[in-house]
């Protein structure tokens, strides 16, 4: 991976939903000089425009990856100086106990829970319930704790990036952030290229905000509304449980099996023509790709994008990710390369 340093920097950025500043800054710094225009919209999406310099009917293509990550917000501080948290997104509460955390301010803490000597036999066989967890900052009381964190401050699990053997990477928020790296790398590749070769007159790279806290509606809607692209391709993590004795239908994506090209997920039936185009491009180039057997992969931003304004033809491409939302997500370099090759094929005219 050419941009391994950027992946490491983004894994270490503390930028949960609603407070994506550090990720946005890191992304912008890495793509300086590679685009025509960049701005942050009212919902927090970072939008980067690259023009072909011509206006052949002004066809617009939007490529998106979300730059936020699951995390938490300080909800209360008690008299003993312990902070309690509200989760931002689907952060897996089973992994919280005992983990180091970082606030966007740089303050560090540890998620503590009932220690082993006080746990009953039944408690020892269950994950710690979220309401029994608290953050230890080292403060002796509320007043001292309030000098370290304030109600409403944002934090995430410990910033972390660890290359494993066999071309795997482990780290915080790697699934989603690797797709941000992919968009940056794509911009770099397009920079030296003849702009006539672009598959659209204008390309918009959207690093979206608040994806992880979305319920009915995703924040990317405002970017899609402003850009009104003819086509949108969304890059995101695809959950993988490709280990142990999980049944075939509950294993999700598999690492090493290439780009996840989804015909549909729980929220979206993707555009048939774009889906067919992506599959034929992958085949023609000998790229590894997969359609996980799970009946309903969780719905992503496509759910909102495909019905924004008068409707947008949308495709979703994923990178298989183990330990999703755990602070120690695992991806494989070969899958990243497969998604990148597919993305290149999609943005360059045949």
């Amino acid at each position, binding site marked *: 991976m050419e941009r391994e340093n950027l992946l490491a920097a983004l894994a270490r950025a503390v930028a949960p939903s609603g407070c994506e500043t550090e990720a946005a800054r890191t992304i912008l710094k890495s793509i300086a000089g590679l685009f025509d225009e960049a701005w942050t919209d009212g919902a927090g999406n970072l939008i980067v425009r690259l023009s072909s310099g011509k206006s052949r009917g002004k066809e617009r293509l939007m490529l998106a990856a979300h730059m936020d990550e699951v995390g938490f917000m300080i909800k209360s501080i*008690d008299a003993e100086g312990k902070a309690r948290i509200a989760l931002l997104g689907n952060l897996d509460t089973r992994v919280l106990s005992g983990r180091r955390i970082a606030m966007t301010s740089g303050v560090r803490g540890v998620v503590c829970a*009932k220690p082993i000597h006080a746990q009953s036999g039944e408690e020892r066989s269950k994950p710690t319930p979220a309401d029994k967890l*608290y953050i230890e900052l080292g403060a002796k009381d509320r007043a001292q704790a309030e000098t*370290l964190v304030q109600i409403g401050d944002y934090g995430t699990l410990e910033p972390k990036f660890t290359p494993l053997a066999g071309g795997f990477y*482990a780290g915080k928020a790697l699934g989603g952030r690797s797709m941000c790296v992919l968009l940056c790398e794509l911009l770099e590749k397009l920079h030296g290229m003849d702009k006539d070769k672009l598959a659209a007159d204008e390309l918009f790279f959207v690093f979206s905000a608040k994806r992880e806290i979305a319920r009915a509606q995703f924040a990317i809607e405002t970017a899609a509304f402003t850009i009104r692209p003819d086509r949108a391709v969304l890059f995101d993590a695809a*959950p993988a*449980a490709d*280990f142990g004795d999980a049944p075939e239908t509950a294993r999700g994506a598999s690492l090493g099996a290439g780009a996840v090209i989804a015909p549909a997920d729980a929220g979206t039936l993707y555009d048939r023509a774009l889906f067919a185009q992506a599959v034929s491009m992958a085949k023609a180039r000998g790229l590894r790709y997969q359609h996980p057997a799970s009946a309903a992969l969780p719905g992503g931003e496509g759910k909102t994008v495909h019905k924004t304004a008068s409707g947008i033809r949308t495709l979703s491409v994923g990178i298989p990710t183990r330990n999703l939302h755990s602070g*120690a997500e*695992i991806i494989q370099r070969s899958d990243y390369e497969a998604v990148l090759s597919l993305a290149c094929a999609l943005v360059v005219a045949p």
Partner: protein
Amino acid sequence: MQTKELLAALCGKMSVVGFESYDEKALSALIDPYLDEHEYDAAGNHIFIRRCGKPEAKRLFLDAHYDEVGLMVKGITKEGYLRVCGQGGVDARILPAAEVVVYGRERLPGIVLTKPRELMTGDESGRLTPVTELLIDTGLTKEEAEKAAPIGTPVGFEPVYTELAGGFFAGKGFDNKCSAAAVILAVSQLEMSALECDLYVSLSAREEVGHRAVSTAAFRIRPDAALVLDVTFGYAPEGKKPGDSEMQGGPAVSISAILDKALTDFVVETAEIEKIPVQTVVEATGTGTHADELVYAAGGIPTALIGIPIWFMHTANEILNLEDVEHTARLIAAVIRRRYGRGVDGKE
């Protein structure tokens, strides 16, 4: 060396139960400057000796168990994932998605796999995966893993230390190597020529699986008295228990019928005389530490127990306060000076 640096260097060593000699050279390099001799005995105890130079000197046994809870590879799946068993009572609730270090042919990072909620079925989300069902992903294939991390390879928590506010310090292995650090700090403060005793510092083995090794060291050394140092449970909001010690309350001296009353009283009095913060905790009939073994070892050894309060024992992020470690070191040194000092009041 600063307390923090000593703690990180000592507690950061891999000493998963049964593997206490893994990093012996580095341990020697760290401790030898403070002590005169180092022996590694047949039961796995590291004994460091500092002599006063006088013949027939008394022998004080300073015990701090050196082993730590961890995991051990017990199988490799066809995909190359490691299966493990617990070595000592690891808190399994902190293991999902934990980063660990596999101490095989080389040090390898590994990640405990956990299923994403999105792909869970039935009541999986309410169930904690038992240690023996966990899978550790190192990225290696089965063939590679069999070479790099064969069955029997120890697996430990990452040696990462985090400074919190107020002198609190978080990381792995404080149980019980923070006590070893306190002993070393104490010994480094002592002028041996002013003492009439030899110090036997035992960084003892295999405490976490049932106090298996320490009595052999005592049997060989035949000490006149023993001070046992071990961590104790700091009072925390979730799971408060009567008898928990206070963080930043100073060393916690155990009052127990199984311990030597005179020596225990001597320790508490010394703290009062020297104005060292001290607290007492009652463990009426037994302490669950090496002290319970030493009182009946080698014909009986007068033994007292001093605890360092910590939070969140047996996890990758145990938490202590640096002051408590320093006060414990001062107390150990003061007890030794007052009990064995030449011509000092209170000397036997």
